[in-house]
Structure formats: C-alpha cells, structure tokens
C-alpha cells in the first residue's frame, strides 16, 4: 500500500513536468515584429500595438505569426533573424551611433524592412525631427519621399485609398526605396495607437476625428504593410492586374 502510494505520488509529481524538454529554438520562420530600441526618447509608447496588429494579421491572413514580444537594438546580433522592424516613439531621440547606423544601413540594404510610426499625433513633432535626421544619416543621397498611390503597399491585401491612423497628420505615407524595394515606410498618423487594444479586447486609444471605420482602415494598412514586406511587388504581377484595376475603378467610383 505504501508502495502504491509512493507510486501515485511519483506519477503525480513527475508526470506533469515530464522528462526535461530541449531548449525551445527561437521562432524565426513565423512572422515576428521586433520593436527597435533606440537611444533616448520613448521607444515603446504603444506597448500593446504590435501584439494587437499581429493578432489581426493572424485572424485575417494566412501568415503564420509569432506574437512573442521581441525588442532589439540596431546592433543586436539577432537583427538578421527578423527582416521586419517596427520603430515607434512620441519624443525626440538621440542620434544613433556610427556602429548602429552602419548596422541598420546594412540591414535595410540587403533585405530588411523598417516601419516607423510617429505615435505623438502631432505634426512636426520632436520624434519626426529625429526620424528625418536618422534617415538623412542612414541614406544621405536617398531622402524620404511620398509613397505614390499606385504603390503595392496600397494593394498588397486590401485596396486602400488613403492611409488612416489614430490621428490624421498626413494624408500620405512616406518611404525610401533601394533598387525598387521600399525598405522604410514612415507614417506620422500613429498607427500603433489605432491598433492597440488591451488583453480584454478594449481599444486603448480613441480615434481622433473618426471612429470604427478609420480604425479598421488603419488595421488594413498595417496588414498591407506586413504583406508588402513579405511579398513585395507580387500584386503587380500581370496575372493580378486586370482584376485589381477593375476593382480599383469600382472602389474609387463609390
């Protein structure tokens, strides 16, 4: 009886833990959005934004996502495991070191993608000034430009007329391309604020001058940006063009 009791005790105590599991490998194949940590300022004013966006990407598309938060600095050795980076902020920040600039330049030039989101909700914010200086330091001969309306970002999944956001600072996105691939997309409209919801599903921030529809458009833009990073100009392949152009015609005429 004592033996039986000992056996039951052993099973109860050992089985739930099981044999020692191998250390879990990091999930690089699933789509992950690391947050870029930078010197000074506030690099994470919308802590729920990325998890919320990835949940929407998972729910709406076939993309397999990894919602575990990952925070990286530009000089982090793991940077090249994640070809997509998110950089948010609502304050000015210190200039990147030469080493960080070189690392980020290399990352973007050879396959990486950076989405920059001004969460301040103000035109000409300190964050905006810092971002423009950062980009000028990264690519002095290749300035930010307005992303044209026929760019794949506006049709990579949803057909989008105008970029929305928590606020409407700019009616356009800005971007920077290298050899035909857009490697930086910059929104001044606080996309992270529009995406962000708590664990109970409540939206963390209200939409300025808009409601449900504007928030949906912001989420659609987030999905499209992710889809563009993963498929680039796939939607400009000839096989898609006739259908997309017809739908755009109808969409614009609405």
């Amino acid at each position: 009886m004592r033996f039986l009791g000992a056996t039951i005790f052993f099973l109860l105590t050992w089985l739930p833990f099981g044999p020692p599991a191998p250390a879990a490998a990091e999930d690089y194949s699933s789509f992950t959005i690391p947050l870029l940590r930078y010197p000074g300022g506030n690099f994470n004013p919308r802590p729920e934004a990325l998890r919320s966006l990835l949940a929407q990407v998972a729910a709406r598309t076939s993309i397999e996502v990894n919602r575990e938060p990952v925070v990286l600095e530009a000089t982090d050795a793991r940077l090249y495991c994640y070809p997509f980076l998110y950089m948010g902020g609502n304050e000015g920040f210190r200039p990147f070191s030469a080493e960080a600039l070189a690392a980020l330049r290399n990352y973007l030039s050879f396959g990486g993608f950076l989405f920059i989101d001004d969460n301040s909700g103000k035109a000409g914010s300190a964050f905006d000034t810092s971002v423009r200086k950062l980009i000028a330091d990264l690519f002095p001969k290749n300035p930010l430009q307005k992303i044209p309306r026929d760019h794949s970002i506006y049709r990579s999944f949803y057909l989008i007329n105008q970029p929305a956001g928590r606020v409407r600072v700019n009616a356009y996105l800005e971007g920077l391309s290298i050899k035909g691939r857009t490697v930086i997309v910059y929104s001044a409209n606080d996309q992270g604020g529009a995406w962000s919801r708590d664990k109970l599903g409540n939206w963390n921030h209200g939409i300025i001058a808009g409601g449900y529809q504007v928030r949906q458009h912001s989420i659609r833009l987030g999905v499209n940006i992710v889809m563009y990073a993963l498929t680039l100009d796939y939607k400009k392949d000839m096989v898609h063009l006739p259908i997309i152009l017809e739908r755009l015609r109808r969409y614009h005429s609405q």
Partner: protein
Amino acid sequence: MNILIKWLGLNPDEYNQWEIRWAAAGPGLEAAVLVLLVPLALWFFWTSLARIRSPWRKVFLLLLRVLAFSALLLVLFRPELELRKGHYLKNSIAVLLDNSKSLSIKTFPDEQPRASLVRQAMEKNQPYFERLAKTFNVDFYFVSDRPVQVSSGEIATHYQPREPFTDFGRVFADLRKKYEDQSLKGVMLFSDGADLNQAPDEISEELRRAVASIDSPIHAFQTGSNDLFKDLAIEAVDAPDFGFVQQPVNLSVTVNASSIGNKNVSLVLKEGDNVLISKMIEIREGTARYPVDLQFTPRALGKRVYSLSLPLFAGESIASNNRREFQVKVIPDRIRVLHLNGRPSWDSRFLREVLVNNPKVDLLSFFILRTLGDDVAAPTTELSLIPFPSNLLFTDYLNSFDLVIFQNFKYSPFIEKKHLENVKAFVENGGAFLMIGGNLSFQGGEYERTAIEDLLPVSLLREKQAWRKDEIASRPVKGFLNHPILRLEKDDAANEKIWRSLPPLSTLNTGLRPETGAQVLVEDGKGGPVLAVAKKGRGRAALIASDSSWNWNFRRVGEGGSGRYYQRFWNNMVAWLSGDPATQVLQLETDREQYHEGDEVLIKGRVLKEDYQPAAGEAVTLTLRSPAGGVDTHALKAGPLGEVAFAFTPEEEGFYHARAEVKRGKETLSAEAGFGVFGDTAEFQKPLVNPALLEKIAAISGGTASVLSAQTDLSGIHFENPEVLVKTRSKAFSLWDNWAAYGLIAGLLFLEWWLRRKSGLS
C-alpha cells in the same frame, strides 16, 4: 637666272624654276589706307613743288616720291622669291580585271566562261594598251575583294577566276589609297558586276562613296550576259543565328530563276532526312526573284543543321546553288516557373526575389494570402485577392511550364487530388518539380499516398511531429560537392569552405526516407535529407526539407557575408531542374561553330558519373555523320577528368553532325553537336551578271558602261592627260624683310630730300 642663284649662294643645277610669291593673306587694312592716301599725298607733294621752275626737276622729284611709295606698298605685300626644282607627272590609268569565281560561269550562246571574254579583249586590244602606255602609266590589277597589281605580261598566264568573293567597295577604297600621291585619270573595269554585297538593282552607300572618291571616270565593261543563262538558285537565306526550342523560327529565302520557263517548283526545308516544311513557288518568265517566307519549329536543343533545296533541272549552269544549308543554335526559352506559396513567409519572399531577378526565368507566382478560416473583415471588392485558377493551371496550362514549385503549400482545398496526377505526368514527360519545406509541406500538406509522393525523391513516413523548429546543420554529402546544384564556387576547396560557412537552418521537415535512385545532396547533422534530387521519367524532381534557406541569405549578411551564394544556389537549382545543358553528365561541343575547307575540327566532350565526378576510363562512342550521309563511328575512352576529344579534317563541305553515346546499364546517355564546313562557293549563290551595278558605277564616276564581246575595240576610250607639275625641291627668299628693301626706300626719300634742298625747298 643662274647668276641670281649663284649670288644667293646656291647650286644652279639644283633649281630650274623660279617664281615670285605674294603674301597669301594680303597686306590688309594698312594697304587699303595707303592706296587711298598715296594719291592725296602726291597731290599735296606736287603743289609743294610750285616754286621749282624746271618742270623736269619737278617730274623727277615726283617720280622719286612715287617710287618710294611703290616700294613701301611692295613691302606691305611681302613678296618672296621661290626657287625650285620640279617635273611633270605622268598620269595613270588603272585597268581592273575581275578574277572572282563567278567569272568562271559560262556565258551563252558561246558557252565560254566569262573570263575568256576578258582574255580575248586584252589580247585584241594589246596595241591600244601599248599606245596608252606611251602617254600614261597603265597599271593592271586583278580584282575580287581587293586589287592585286600585275604586269601586263602576267595577264595571259596568271589570269584565272579563282577568288571567292567580290567586293567593289573595298577594291575602289584600296585603289584610292594607292593613287593618293599620283594622278589617276581613268579606270577600266572588266567584270560581271556580281558583287554579293550589293542588293539587286541597288548600289550601297559605301560603294557609292568609294566610287566617287576615285575622282576619275570608270569605264565599265560588262563581261558576260544573262541571255539564255539557265539556273535556279537559292540566292539568299535570312535565318536567325539562334532560336528557342518549341518556338517558331522565321526564315526569309530568296529564290532566283533564270531561263527556267513557267514551272511550279517546290522549296523543301529538311533537318537531316526529315522534311520539316515545303512550299510551292510559281516560277514565271519575266520574273527573276521570288521572296519566300518559311516558318518551322525546332524540337530539340543544340546546334541544329537545316537544309533548303530546290529541284535541279537539265541544262542548269550551276547545280550547287540549288541547295543551301544553314545552322540555328536552338536554346531553351526562358524557364517558365509556376511558384505556388502556401502562405507569405520570409522563405518565399527571398526566393521570389531570386527568381524575379533571374533573367532566364519567366515567373508566375501565386500566394495563398487567406484561407477559408480567415476573417478579412471586408467585402471582396475591397480586397486585392484574386481566385486561384487551379483548373486552368493544372489542366490546360500545366505543360506550358518547365518547373512547378510547391513552397510550403498544402494542395487541399486549392487543387483537386486528381490534378496532382497531372503534375506527375508533367514531370515524367520532361517537366520539373520542386517541393520546399514548411509545416504545410510533405506530411503537413497531406501528400502521403498522392501522385506527388511518387514524384518526390523520398517517401513520406508517418510521424507525429514531422516538422521541427531547431537549429539544423546543412552538410553536403561527401562526393556530391561537384553536383551542379551545390557548385557555389568553381574551386573544390573554396566550394566546400562556402558550404561550411553557411548559417544553420532553423526548421526541418522530418520523416523523409530517400527513395532508391534518389540522391541526397545535403543532410542534417543526423543523416536526414535536407536536399534531395531524383530523375523521374524524362523529368527531374527535388526537395528542400526546410523553409529557412533564406538564412543562407539574410543571416549570412548579418554575419558579415553576402547573399550571393544563396542566389547562386537557387539559380543552380533552377538550372539543374530545367535540364540546362551545362548540368548534363555527358556533354559534347566543337572548338568552333564553322570551319573553312581544310581546317581541322576538334570535337570535345566530358563524361561524368551520376554524382558528377569524372567518369575516367568510360567508353564513349562517337558517331560522325557527313553532309553526304556517310557515317563514321569512333570508340573513345574518357581521360582522368572525364574528357574525350577527337580531331579530324573534313573532306566535304556542308554541315556535320556528331553524336556521343555512353551506355550505363539499360540506359544510353547521348549528347549531340553540329558544325559547318564551308567551301568558297558564295559567288555561285548570285551567279547572274549585274549590268545595273556596272552602269551605276560608270554613271557616278562620269565614265561609260558597255557590254564586252570578243570584238570589242577599246580605242574609242580616251582619257584626259593634263600636265601635272610636281615639286621635288624648293627654297624661298624674302624680298622685303631685308636691309636692301628698307635701304631702297630710305635712299629714294634721301635723294628726293637732297634735290628739294638743292632747289631751295625745305
């Protein structure tokens, strides 16, 4: 004159002429001012002499002043005395005798070669040339594609129509250079005008310029005629140097008929003994040229030799121009790739970039962007998604692709299971298939016991967890580093080093057991296949059991490397799967594509084992097929590097076909190469006399054109013979820039002043 020359300190024997020269630019404004002022000054001078009573003295003083002014004007015109030695040049006449092969063609009704007319004309008119030589330098040339000077005595013995090409443009350009420092006053051209560089009834701009540059009349004598000339010829074939396999190739052929009568003839295009196409041509009297357009479709790769032929009629002047061969290098069209992605991922993003940037690839991609379970929260009209055209792709259009890629793609519910059978048939008939890993591939895609499993180089085992995320080594299997897919560097050691330096993979599809005959090129650290290939029927199949090969690109960049080996790996993969000739284990080529008669031909080959290691010592049978159909077989043995070589000198002109064969068990490997041996018979492709060209040459140069016959008398041809003086020595002396000229002016003015003083004037 001699006194003057001696006075100047020169030898009178060295100079026989003299001349006063004036400044070329003239004295200019100062002289004009002087010419206007001098009369005025003389008038004032004359009035100032009023107090002198003696009119003679007045006139003398005026004369002195006039002489002083004249001397001053002369100085302004800067006169020079030129002493020189010169002689008169004898003008030249060039006599050009066309000695190209077309002059050997018989002319009718006498049935004597055109060249005989030239010989007869030269003999008959020998006195004329002798007379001409008394007043001119008469230079004789044999001309074809360049002028070769001969003496008059050599014409009878050396004139033979043997040269392979006629090029009047070059002949006249060379002639102009020869007479650059001489006085050429006329040209006599004896030719049939059959210049292959000139289009019918036209003269090229180059020839027009060359004729005009001669700057003297060219008298053309048409040698031979087209009367009663009977011939049917393939005059020109305009074929592309290369074409794409299975794609139509267009040919433009020009047939020329002379005195054939009204007949319907058949133009036949063959490859070897196979008739590809034939076209009926209605030959009618009065029409010489017949443009014919043909189209055919090459079915096999490599250098293919095609022949065009026309029937040969009795009495034709030339038989060889009824047949013409040409070669087209048939290359693969762009490799059409159908790329299906189960979901957007970094693996698919980086691979798609490589495929899009590969100029040899024509890519059609499809991404499954949403599944049935996804809620897009928008109406279809606000989505850019298009329906997946499964039926079209896997029934109607499947055979138009060369390679089908399933990348992390689960076929259900997008493709019906029965359509997977079509993919299998597609590969067995020569297509290619590649499966790239991920959790929707292999067992994850439910491919067990489907036609796709039959295609794969592995069988799919039942495993609970057939998809693993972990750090996976990718180790090339020893002996396969020479495989074209794994060739990232040419050098063996460098190649091995590169493979060792690639970052590890981060995912692996497991439960894959290699099939018999499959080759596992890369293993994980535990012997599981990471990259495996196999031949399936006439096609090829491959798999990569991971969706993280992009690590070899982006992560390698992060480690300080570059993505170039990733790109090379995938380009190698596409090349091997599409059966690129460079990936064949038996290869055959020649050192040149075309040879002249008498050249040695070198046929080279390479034999490799199935693992792409050299098949040293392997027996190779080389079969050579000559243009006449003769077949020679040679037994060769591969060298230490798998190389074979065979050299020979072809005896016939035309296109040869070489085929190498290696027997391996029941299978016979083969490779083919073709090459052409050309004789110099181009002149017979356009054998007709071209009177229009001769007339144009004569007209441009200001000469005459006439038909040459045995009775032609050239004595009516005259040339200008002006005196042309040529300086051989000269020396110039200034008549103004010296003490004597200025002393003369000063002396005249002094004498005048002295007389004025004597006459009581100031």
